[in-house]
């Protein structure tokens, strides 16, 4: 993950607080703009998707991982390598379905909700971190894996843990043009 020596020796890190605050400001502004929680969730998901389709190449370029050969390998990669690289935390993986295409990531610590205690009463069904779902969905789509990503359980809504569910859908790209 090191940069070439040709780059300017600047401090590449910015404050984590700033990032968390920015995310919070984003969600707060969306709440002012939209009345319904569903709209805010959809907007966050779409923004996350736009981030995900670009972030995937950054992830692949920096981590130089090989192509994953199964859904569970892919989910492990997201939970252990990607989350670590971008959020500094790792998630644990659970496989929920017999068909082998439903997984969930259990997040112990979520840096995005560092300063959030609980959702306000009128925003009970807001998925605060829905951006993450969009990011994962966008990234998977760019490597030809269609998936549905949603929040199954959320600490902010009173559940015990934060759980993100990933359901891999049928691969649409099974044509003669198999790309590696």
């Amino acid at each position, binding site marked *: 993950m090191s940069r070439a020596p*040709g780059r300017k020796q600047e401090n590449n890190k910015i404050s984590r607080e700033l990032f968390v605050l920015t995310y919070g400001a984003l969600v707060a502004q969306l709440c002012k703009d939209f009345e319904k929680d569903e709209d805010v969730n959809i907007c966050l998901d779409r923004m996350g998707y736009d981030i995900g389709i670009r972030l995937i190449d950054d992830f692949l*370029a920096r981590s130089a991982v090989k192509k994953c050969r199964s859904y569970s390998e892919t989910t492990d990669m997201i939970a252990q390598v990607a989350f670590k690289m971008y959020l500094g935390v790792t998630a644990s993986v659970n496989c929920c379905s017999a068909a082998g295409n439903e997984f969930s990531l259990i997040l112990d610590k979520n840096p995005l909700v560092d300063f959030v205690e609980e959702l306000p009463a009128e925003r009970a069904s807001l998925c605060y971190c829905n951006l993450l779902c969009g990011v994962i969905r966008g990234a998977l789509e760019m490597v030809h894996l269609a998936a549905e990503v949603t929040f199954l359980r959320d600490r902010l809504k009173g559940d015990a843990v934060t759980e993100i569910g990933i359901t891999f859908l049928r691969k649409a790209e099974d044509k003669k043009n198999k790309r590696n």
Partner: protein
Amino acid sequence: MAIFSVYVVNKAGGLIYQLEHCAPRTDTEKTFSYPLDLVLRPHDERVVVAFGQRDGIRVGHAVLAINGAEVNGRLTAEGKDVLEFLSNPANYPVSIRFGRHRLSSNEKLMLASMFHSLFAIGSQLSPEVGSSGIEMLETDTFKLHCFQTLTGIKFVVLADPRQAGIDALLRKIYEIYSDFALKNPFYSLEMPIRCELFDQNLKQALEVAEKAGPFGPGS
């Protein structure tokens, strides 16, 4: 040691970026008197040497300029037909520049999509299942290296056959792409890359790779 050019091809096979870093320019300009001892003939949109190779002017070289003025396809700069002009003894002595015709951007687009198809055919011809496409194409004057990312973007580098470290260079170009093209919020995916920072950093990376010479970087 030289890296000749870099091409970036998107998922659909369209060329989204190309850079001619160092073209082995083999132009020769000579003054001729009537009659011309080279045999010229029209070919596509150009006038090429058919016979009479000498002094660095080779068969297949095109007429690039007459008396310093660049020719326009088969017409001189003034609009006269080149072959007619050269068969008139009154126009001699004349100075003609011959050289290898540079590819136009349309030709590059076509070649990129053709390579994209060949790449796919390459992976299907393989006796092993799940093999990659064409990674390297070697000729006596250059080597073509190709790296396809898991997202379907191909980075193609044409370099001198003795140049080493191209694999590392391809990975570096991938990093530069993911930084300066993808992270630019105004760049749309799969579209031609028009980002200054991408150009600059790519040229820097090419220079570093070239300086490393035939032994690769870190030697």
